[in-house]
């Protein structure tokens, strides 16, 4: 498919608009249409909330086990260990999110630092 120069400059943006924007917002729009029919605290809403949570949990597991970017170069035991340590600290310290974040980052950065030497 021959494309003109101006088309070539715009093509990545069109690509992002269709494969990124539309592919993501379509679910948000469907969610609005579905959510409008749901009553607060109905059985269907409780089920949908559980499905949403399990989906996010699957995303979390994938980010930790099969990461991309700078995390991909680190050992899987370090990533999972850091997340687990953070989560346990979070549970112990009355479910403070900040405690979980700080502990997991400390374990991760400490582990990576000493592992590198």
């Amino acid at each position, binding site marked *: 498919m021959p494309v003109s120069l101006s088309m070539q400059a715009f093509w990545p943006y069109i690509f992002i608009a269709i494969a990124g924007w539309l592919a993501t917002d379509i679910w*948000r729009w469907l969610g*609005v249409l579905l*959510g409008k029919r749901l009553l607060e605290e109905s059985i269907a809403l409780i089920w949908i909330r559980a499905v949403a949570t399990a989906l996010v949990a699957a995303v979390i597991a994938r980010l930790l086990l099969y990461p991309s970017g700078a995390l991909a170069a680190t050992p899987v035991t370090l990533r999972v260990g850091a*997340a687990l340590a953070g989560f346990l600290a979070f549970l112990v310290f009355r479910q403070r999110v900040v405690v979980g974040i700080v502990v997991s980052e400390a374990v991760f950065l400490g582990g990576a630092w000493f592992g590198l030497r």
Partner: protein
Amino acid sequence: MKSETPVRQWPWFARGMRGVFSAPALILMGAFVGFCGFAFEAGMPLGQTVFMTAAVWALPAQIVLIGAMLAGASLPTAAIAVALSSMRLMPMVAALVPQIRGKSTPTWLLLLLSHFVAVTAWVFTMQRIHTVPREGRVAFFAGFGLTISVTNIVLVAVTYDVISHLPGLLAGGLFLLTPVYFLTSIWASARTPEIQYAMVIGLVLGPVFHVITPEYGLLLAGVLGGTLAFVLERSINVMRRRNGAG
């Protein structure tokens, strides 16, 4: 909106805006700096990285999209990959809408505002919305959603050039923020036990289904894991009630 008094909307909008200084918002900013590093490494130009942040506004989807563009995927292939990773937004928005909409909230406004729903806005809103009166909820969500997304779009534009000097270890640490933050904040915001069951089951089923079928792994783990958590909570409830009666 006309039947709602406009005077009362602004204070709630402003209170939503102040959420940009909350812990979830600050952690998200850290995660976006990490994303910026990923986009830079992947060779995504500044303009496309900023446009993507504004247009998609969902970190996992943006990572999947960059991965697909890097691999030279066709438009339909990239769109399907992104759509699968963004599917979780449908039940999230569906769960949020009954909590925030007022009696006279127009559908077009909900459709417009739904763009701001991602894990951070979802957790932030679910945690705080019961402290906001019904007529101020849409304004509260709009104030938070608009402010947090504009802030991060600007942040991505500003940090893009700085990020090239970021050491790999620090970039990894910023990338780790997202999963740990998702895990702890959703757990903390759960007001009913099936949310925690769903979290644990989803964490286990996610990798299992990823190995079996990488394309549909997320979807299967979500629907099966969520349903299992739902059924588990219901049966525990029934058993407790029976024991209480006997």
